[in-house]
């Protein structure tokens, strides 16, 4: 009964979304407030209905109701409770339901917090948002119904893919989806602006918080996914340039460009047409990512059980949404007025450079991801484009971006002074040299890595430059500088953290790739494995039983200078239901580096294949990601972006004046 309620709620949500797709638009054209209000009401209704639908499926998963096909195929009654719940989105049908649930949530958020948006624009935005929702409800109902029943109900489920039985599944997909789907709001705003034919600085001010919110979650989602892959796949890699990773990385790059160009639009009314295009493209890349993952056109470690009929349906959705939006853009954009002139060397100029480089980087990833597809279509040859291509093309594109990063905030709007900015960055250049020298003293070669470490230090120091400049540190007493720094807008702090995060990630990547150590060997119990100043004493294997698996656990005693500092227990798990094995790596954090041990085959001669890695400063890769996301949160909490803040300040000022 409960799954049927969920199914029915989904159908009702479709009905509401169809009404919401049309009525508010008519209202906006005829200036009818009642019709326009259908947008707001509909958005709330969709959200409530989706909560019911999602809740019903969650209930079926929680109770291990194997009469529901999706539960039977992806769950097992012996799984820990947390995985019973998360296996909901560990499969195509359930994850689509999560996707539309988040879409409905964002619609409701716009309805709730969009009080300062002009009513007609808000109504149009909610209608566009509802087109997206309607298409995806239809997609779920027609091709991927998660509520399909089985008769008779099987007694036991088929278990969740063992690789997904990990806390990472609880965090990574929801974060990523909030990021992906969050960009639908910028998309809806862009399409609504094109429909209304009116775009101004205020538009950018309304869009930026939504784009920023989506960007924060996407950043966290990608960082989390990378860490999950790192510890779960057993060979210590944290980025594979896999098509699906690229699918999440492209919206991130485009979204980063969007955040910056929207800034120019908000402050200077320039780059309007370009910002609109970026808003459309960012969400389009999210949608294309969804298509790539679920249609089976490309092979990937993430592939869902794919089905060409679903692929055709998603392709139709892409044609309608992306094709429609771009057609509207081609029709309307030429008539939009460009504003705000600026010199090439200026804050605007630096942000244009940022946009050029970021879009080129996005295009590079896009070409690399789709090239095998195009080549096979044209010649039938099967190739795969791997890390060498991306490392060769992407890294040279990112170096100028990183060099330019600290300059941006130091240049004035309209016309900047590059010499003054360079002078203010003197200490960043010094930091670069010091950083490279420290790395040289500790590690020596290779020179490229030393230069990259220097670049990382430069980016971090350069990010702090604006803060030092504006707080007057080193020029005024420390207490005054501290007081001034606290008084700076939060967005300044946000910029600093986000930019410094880039430098941290870069340093982490360089240290891990250039100076990481690795040994692989077959060892008998009692053997000692030396690595990077540590010694691992292998004590032997012992069996252990988990809730739905059995494991062979290896015990390793970690010694530093002959003293025991801890125990690591990598294991191999055997899941009987799917007759699959997984290797669970053991990690030990030492400072910012990690020891990483993974088990390979257990051989006939009683030896065990063991891979041991020492990864210096590897944690910086993800700490950098966290710093970027934290910077985003600070910017989002800036009062300038807080909903209605300017109006409230004005009201208060007026009240004071009248009083």
């Amino acid at each position, binding site marked *: 009964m409960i799954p049927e309620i969920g199914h029915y709620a989904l159908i009702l949500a479709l009905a509401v979304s169809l009404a919401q797709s049309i009525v508010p638009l008519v209202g906006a054209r005829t200036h009818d407030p009642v019709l326009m209000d259908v947008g707001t009401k509909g958005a709330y209704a969709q959200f409530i209905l989706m909560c019911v639908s999602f809740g019903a499926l969650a209930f079926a998963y929680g109770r291990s109701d194997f009469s529901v096909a999706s539960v039977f195929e992806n769950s097992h009654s012996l799984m820990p409770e947390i995985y019973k719940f998360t296996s909901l989105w560990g499969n195509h049908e359930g994850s689509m339901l999560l996707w539309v649930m988040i879409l409905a949530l964002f619609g409701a958020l716009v309805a709730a917090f969009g009080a300062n948006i002009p009513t007609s624009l808000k109504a149009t935005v909610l209608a566009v948002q509802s087109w997206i929702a309607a298409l995806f409800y239809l997609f779920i109902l027609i091709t991927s119904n998660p509520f399909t029943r089985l008769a008779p109900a099987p007694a036991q489920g088929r278990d969740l893919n063992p690789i997904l039985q990990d806390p990472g599944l609880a965090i990574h997909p929801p974060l990523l989806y909030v990021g992906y789907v969050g960009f639908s709001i910028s998309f809806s705003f862009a399409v609504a602006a094109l429909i209304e034919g009116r775009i101004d600085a205020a538009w950018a001010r309304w869009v930026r918080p939504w784009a920023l919110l989506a960007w924060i979650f996407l950043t966290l989602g990608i960082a989390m996914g990378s860490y999950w892959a790192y510890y779960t796949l057993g060979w210590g890699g944290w980025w594979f340039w896999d098509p699906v990773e690229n699918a999440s990385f492209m919206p991130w790059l485009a979204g980063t460009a969007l955040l910056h160009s929207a800034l120019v639009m908000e402050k200077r009314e320039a780059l309007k047409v370009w910002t609109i295009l970026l808003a459309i493209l960012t969400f389009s890349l999210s949608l294309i990512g969804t298509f790539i993952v679920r249609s089976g056109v490309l092979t990937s470690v993430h592939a869902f059980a794919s089905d060409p009929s679903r692929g055709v349906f998603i392709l139709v959705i892409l044609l309608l949404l992306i*094709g429609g939006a771009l*057609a509207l*853009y081609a029709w309307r954009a030429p008539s939009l007025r460009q504003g705000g002139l600026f010199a090439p060397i200026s804050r605007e100029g630096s942000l244009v450079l940022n946009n050029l480089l970021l879009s080129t980087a996005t295009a590079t990833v896009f070409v690399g991801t789709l090239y095998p597809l195009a080549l096979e279509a044209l010649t039938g040859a099967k190739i795969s484009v791997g890390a060498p291509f991306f490392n060769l093309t992407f890294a040279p594109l990112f170096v100028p971006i990183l060099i330019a990063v600290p300059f941006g905030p130091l240049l004035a709007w309209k016309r900047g002074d590059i010499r003054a900015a360079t002078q203010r960055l003197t200490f960043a250049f010094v930091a670069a040299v010091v950083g490279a020298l420290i790395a040289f003293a500790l590690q020596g070669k290779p020179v490229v890595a030393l230069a990259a470490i220097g670049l990382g230090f430069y980016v971090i120091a350069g990010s702090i430059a604006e803060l030092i400049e504006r707080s007057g540190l080193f020029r005024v007493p420390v207490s005054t500088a501290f007081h001034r720094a606290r008084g700076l807008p939060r967005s300044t702090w946000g910029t600093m953290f986000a930019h410094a995060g880039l430098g941290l990630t870069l340093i982490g990547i360089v240290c891990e790739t250039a100076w990481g150590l690795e040994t692989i060997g077959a060892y008998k119990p009692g053997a000692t494995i030396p690595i990077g100043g540590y010694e691992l004493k292998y004590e032997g294997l012992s069996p252990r039983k988990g809730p739905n698996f059995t494991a062979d656990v290896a015990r390793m005693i970690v010694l530093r200078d002959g003293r025991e500092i801890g125990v690591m227990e990598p294991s191999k798990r055997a899941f009987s239901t799917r007759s699959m094995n997984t290797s669970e790596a053991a990690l030990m954090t030492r400072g910012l580096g990690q020891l990483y041990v993974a088990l390979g085959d257990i051989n006939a001669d009683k030896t065990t294949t063991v891979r041991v890695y020492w990864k210096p400063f590897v944690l910086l890769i993800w700490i950098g990601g966290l710093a970027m996301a934290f910077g985003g949160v600070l910017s989002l909490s800036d009062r300038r972006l807080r909903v209605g803040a300017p109006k409230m300040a004005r009201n208060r000022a007026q009240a004071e004046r009248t009083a």
Partner: protein
Amino acid sequence: MTTQDQNETQNARPRMWVALVPLAAFAAIAALFFFRLGAGDPSKLPSALIGKPAPDIALPALESLAGPNGAVPGIDPAAFKGAVTIVNVWASWCVPCHEEAPLFMKVAQDNRIRVVGVNYKDQPEKALNFLKRYGNPFAAVGVDANGRAGIEWGVYGVPETFIVGRDGMIAYKLVGPLTPDNIDTVLRKEIDKALAKG
């Protein structure tokens, strides 16, 4: 028309054109997606053995497996000559094999072809139980207990199904299980092709 108007239309034209670029690029990508959608699973690589002779390895029979005409023999590579043969690599531990087994009973009803099985890395009693449960579609069953023959056949996962032509050459390889879907759309077509080749 004044000079100023002319200037404006001239300025507007290139911008109109530029605004169409994203749409055109998307159209090309969408066309690419459309053509690749119908192209099948990209993870399936073509077998390097197609067009090459079937491996020349005899496999012992599955002990105490009896058919209507007495004991079911093992695989003799010489027997590939003269008839179109379907070679199914299977094991009782392989889950998709259980799903495709009933379908092979249907395939075996076609008397123009011979259907044989290679029992891959399996235990004899479990293999016998498997055939008892679903019926035995195979005219011959060869036992490949250690997987050596599997290497020669280029097997990288069970189930896999080969079509060997009358000339003893491998004509086609199906990776993964037979399904009610691909039995007509793929396997029967390939069988007809192999039969037509004479």
